[in-house]
């Protein structure tokens, strides 16, 4: 177990180093010059050179990369070109908002997806199943930003017009400040992230559960007189969990994309928002930092999923 974990963590670190290397290389070969962007359109060549020296961009790319990597191991991601703030600080400051959004969104996605999937699978071909299929197809077709805009229009604008002001239009309140306000502000963003992601889980749970329910051991469980609910949730779902967990790790990278869009629509000042702003400003250190942080999450998620296998499936544990 420990050997497995350390190998996974090591390969995760290598992946992150590879990603940062690719990013460095791409920024190096890119046609636009960050120094010129930051110096402004009226800057003379001398001024641009000064900016370049100040940002350390006049060093060879290998040397810059080496400095970056050694800094990385000391928890130093460099400084923003734009406001000279340490990249790590601005990422950490925005992390709670993004993490709240991600965790809540995942909970909504799993809750909605499993409920709908199980409901559909218990009676294939029923009206419930058809409703579930309709949900899945809508969820798979609707882009996150359209879902967010429509939710905002219906639940914020139309309700407010009707005199019911419950949902705020935008913003984020830290959990530590006021948990209720935190949830109130995040409810619509959670649904936005969760609704789109739920479709995948609903479809997966339905198809897996339908085939599992045809297995012999389910018939045995039923013939023992176990209540149907228990058969479905204890016996059937047990074998559905493994593919669902796999899907979570596969979806994690896509979920990140949903966060970027949702943060933009609901005015949440998280890491996705920071990434977009930095892209517009040409703020390379922050872009690389945000990318690395997101990749770190994906790596951690995949390690956690591998651990979850061992918990869920005793066959994996024996090996």
């Amino acid at each position, binding site marked *: 177990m420990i050997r497995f974990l350390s190998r996974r963590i090591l390969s995760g670190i290598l*992946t992150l180093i*590879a*990603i940062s290397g690719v*990013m460095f290389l*791409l*920024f190096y070969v*890119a*046609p*636009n010059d960050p120094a010129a962007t930051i110096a402004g359109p009226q800057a003379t060549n001398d001024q641009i050179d000064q900016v370049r020296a100040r940002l350390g961009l006049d060093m060879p790319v290998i040397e810059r990369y080496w400095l970056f990597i050694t800094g990385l191991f000391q928890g130093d991601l460099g400084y923003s070109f734009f406001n000279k703030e340490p990249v790590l600080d601005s990422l950490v400051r925005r992390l709670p908002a993004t993490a709240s959004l991600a965790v809540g969104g995942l909970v909504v996605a799993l809750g909605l997806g499993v409920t709908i999937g199980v409901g559909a699978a218990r009676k294939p071909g029923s009206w419930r199943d058809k409703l579930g299929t309709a949900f899945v*197809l*809508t969820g*798979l*077709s*609707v*882009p*996150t*930003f*359209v879902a967010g*805009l*429509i939710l905002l*229009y219906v639940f914020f*604008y139309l309700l407010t017009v009707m005199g019911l002001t419950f949902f705020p*239009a935008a913003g984020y309140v830290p959990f530590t400040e006021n948990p209720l306000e935190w949830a109130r502000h995040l409810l619509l963003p959670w649904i936005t992230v969760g609704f789109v992601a739920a479709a995948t889980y609903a479809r997966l749970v339905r198809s897996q559960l339908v085939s599992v329910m045809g297995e012999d051991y389910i018939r045995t469980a039923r013939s023992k007189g176990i209540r149907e609910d228990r058969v479905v949730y204890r016996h059937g779902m047990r074998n559905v969990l493994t593919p669902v967990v796999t899907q979570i790790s*596969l979806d994690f*990278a*896509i979920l*990140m*994309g949903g966060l*970027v*869009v949702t943060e*933009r*629509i609901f005015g949440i000042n998280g890491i*996705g928002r920071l*990434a*977009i702003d*930095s*892209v*517009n400003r*040409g703020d390379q250190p922050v*872009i*690389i930092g*945000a*990318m690395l942080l*997101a*990749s770190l*999450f*994906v*790596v951690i998620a*995949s390690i956690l999923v591998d651990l979850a296998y061992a918990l869920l499936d005793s066959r994996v544990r024996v090996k």
Partner: protein
Amino acid sequence: MPEPTVDAPTDTTLDNQPSVSAASARTGVAARSPFQLVWSRLRHDPTAMVSAVVIVLVIVAAISAPLISGLVGHGPDEQFRKEGLTPSGLPTGPNDQFLLGADNLGRDLFVRLIYGAQLSLIVAFVATVGALGIGTLVGMTAGFMRGKVDTVLTWFMDTTLSLPQLLFAISLVSLVGPSFGTTVVVIILFSWAPIARVVRGQTLSIREKEFVEAARSLGASNWRIMRVDVLPNLVVPILVYGTLLIPQAIVFEATLSFLGLGVLPPTATWGNMLAAASTGSMYTIAWWMLVFPSAALLCVTLAFNLLGDSVRDALDPRQTLFAKKRRVTKLKKKEIAE
């Protein structure tokens, strides 16, 4: 896209049955029958037909965009600040001059919607063809060559799949600047890996089949086996993935444009139109700016997804078997003749 109503043959299932329609087919009797089978199944699937009709309508509208624009008398980027905006500068709603209303700059939403469809479809088709090409090539090479080549290519697939796509995409856009070309390249870059993975899996099993062994014993080169024996057996998954990739590409483009990192304004794209609706909460005073582009986007992606599902249902594994048999005899005859 063929018309759904042309000749309705009564044959439905067996492949030796459609001798009548096969005889009426002008060329390649044997080569066509698997597709005729699928086609007859699709024709009896109402969902597939409705989706196909929606897609055809959208394609027709997109092609005739300049025509429609001429008929209405409004260009896609033309601003009608007098007619399209109220005296206080707010957009006017749907009326007989602006069928679906005007946007915040007094442009005709209907005309822009159709030009947006044109752009969405072009981006989606180009990106899908590109992703299918790369995905098939990489997946087939990995599955067929196995060994080190497979390890390296699979590593590339897995890494691409585990990257935070949208974040990586916007970083890439920041390097070269947003444009039509960048958008297509970025979509291809993040769409080929799932196809490559599926194709690789299929190739792994196909390469162990007897007909591949037969081809090899007849002295066919790797390239020839991949092209003649493996590729035709991959048509089914490629076709299904292709149909399902189109809506994903449309959504990807719309998302990038919405974030201001796709095809840049003033070009009419659905993502740009929705970005305009969301900027400064425009949609609260002009619901049409939100509702119509959203509906268009949803309709098209839904239609492609439904069609993709139906195509998958219609393409039974039986067809793959049939194609294999045909290929073996063809190769043998050819090789023997040589």
